[in-house]
């Protein structure tokens, strides 16, 4: 582990952005560093409101993140941005281009932007992202925005690390069935129809609203879960959050004040109904589960000599034993 980490942690807490940046790199590169950093910083976390912003490529996520950050800055809130882009599965490299649209945020010490590659970690993106978010949280940013491309499991993972999940749609992009298939209505706390200057925006809003009201939740979200029966909807309606559909134009900032209002009222809603704590608890469960899985796996693998593992897998490959027998042998191995 880098001996400089403790120095950086101290420097970060006295406002060094250089130290903050270096801690993020170290946390991204090494789970042991992440553990040490989070252990140290944990008491200072829990203040930031984490927003997950997702949507199809080209929907306007980076532009909207920029405009949203500008709007939040006008309200005197500081903003940390984590923009996640996919790593190439072939080379492991990544082209992180979200800063291209974030020029308007340059020179503001109340904003910190970090680009992050997904690095193809199996289920690990969310744990790394959430470690990076905790670092930014401890550094004192009021609002953290995680921007991800909506392309499968990643955005659902990210949604589970956010307090408020915002899904960006745009007119002429994808049909309603795709929206349902992608599961966006299940993860969104706020739906945004960006590019409202374009034809078809109004219909898009209407069809999203209709789908929300036809859905099992009747257009509301309770405890971040789908509610099955009308009785449950009835029972929970007091605590329910009506999912707003907001029109924005990220090219000129229209609708952003609305969006910021809704984001801040969602926070109030979560806090007043006890759901803030509930989401944090849910997140703690998920993160702990992931860590326990990783550790147990590492323990099991460390116990068995590598040569024996090789033999076992060879036996499976040669169809001498079954996969399940192999797992039994591994789990029951005693030296």
């Amino acid at each position, binding site marked *: 582990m880098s001996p400089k980490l403790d120095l950086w942690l101290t420097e970060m807490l006295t406002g060094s952005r250089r130290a903050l*940046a270096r801690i993020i790199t170290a946390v991204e590169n*090494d789970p042991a560093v992440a553990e040490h950093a989070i252990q140290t910083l944990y008491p200072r976390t829990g203040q930031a409101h984490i927003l997950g912003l997702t949507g199809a490529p080209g929907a306007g996520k980076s532009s909207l993140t920029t405009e949203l950050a500008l709007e939040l800055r006008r309200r005197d809130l500081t903003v940390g941005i984590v923009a996640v882009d996919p790593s190439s599965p072939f080379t492991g*490299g990544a*082209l*992180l281009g979200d800063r291209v649209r974030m020029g308007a945020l*340059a020179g503001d010490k109340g904003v910190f932007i970090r680009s992050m590659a997904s*690095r193809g970690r199996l289920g690990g993106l969310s744990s790394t992202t959430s470690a990076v978010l905790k670092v930014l949280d401890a550094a004192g940013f009021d609002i953290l925005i995680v921007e991800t491309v909506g392309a499968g499991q990643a955005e659902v993972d990210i949604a589970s690390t956010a307090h408020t999940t915002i899904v960006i749609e745009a007119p002429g992009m994808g049909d309603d069935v795709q929206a349902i298939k992608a599961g966006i209505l299940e993860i969104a706390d706020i739906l945004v129809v960006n590019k409202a200057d374009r034809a078809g925006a109004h219909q898009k809003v209407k069809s999203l609203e209709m789908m929300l009201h036809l859905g099992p939740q009747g257009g509301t979200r309770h405890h971040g879960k789908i509610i099955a029966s009308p009785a449950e909807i009835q029972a929970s309606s007091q605590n329910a959050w009506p999912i707003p559909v907001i029109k924005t134009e990220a090219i000129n900032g229209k609708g952003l004040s609305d969006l910021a209002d809704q984001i801040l009222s969602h926070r109030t809603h979560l806090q007043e109904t006890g759901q803030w704590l509930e989401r944090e608890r849910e997140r703690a469960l998920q993160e702990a589960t992931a860590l326990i899985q990783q550790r147990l796996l590492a323990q099991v693998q460390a116990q068995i000599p590598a040569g024996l593992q090789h033999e076992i897998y060879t036996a499976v490959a040669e169809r001498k034993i079954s996969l399940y027998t192999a797992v039994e042998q591994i789990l029951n191995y005693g030296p």
Partner: protein
Amino acid sequence: MNERKPRILIAKPGLDGHDRGAKVIARALRDAGMEVIYTGLRQTPEMIVEAALQEDVDAIGLSILSGAHKALIPRITTLMGENELEDVPLFLGGIIPDEDIPVMKEQGVTAVFGPGSSTQDISAFIWNSLREI
């Protein structure tokens, strides 16, 4: 278990609107397994150094075609110094006249890659210049 990947900033300072060269390099470095932070056109020295700081990059690559390197580079290296980034290698691509190269190096540029350089040369340069962390 260390998953370090080189992080490189590729930026295009100056006022001209051609970022093809910068994009080619960005893609080549991505294909060489690096994480490339691409910031696009018309980046001021302040924006470049701020991005390098926030992204904690291992190297900064600039594409300059406009002949503005003589004005831009001293400003960028000064800002890098002010932000404790003096140890981050800085390389230039694009069109830099041969006679300016020694001056550029004096001002803190680590390497200059002319139009003939291969992307392999550039990525080898970056791998070799990675700092200890």
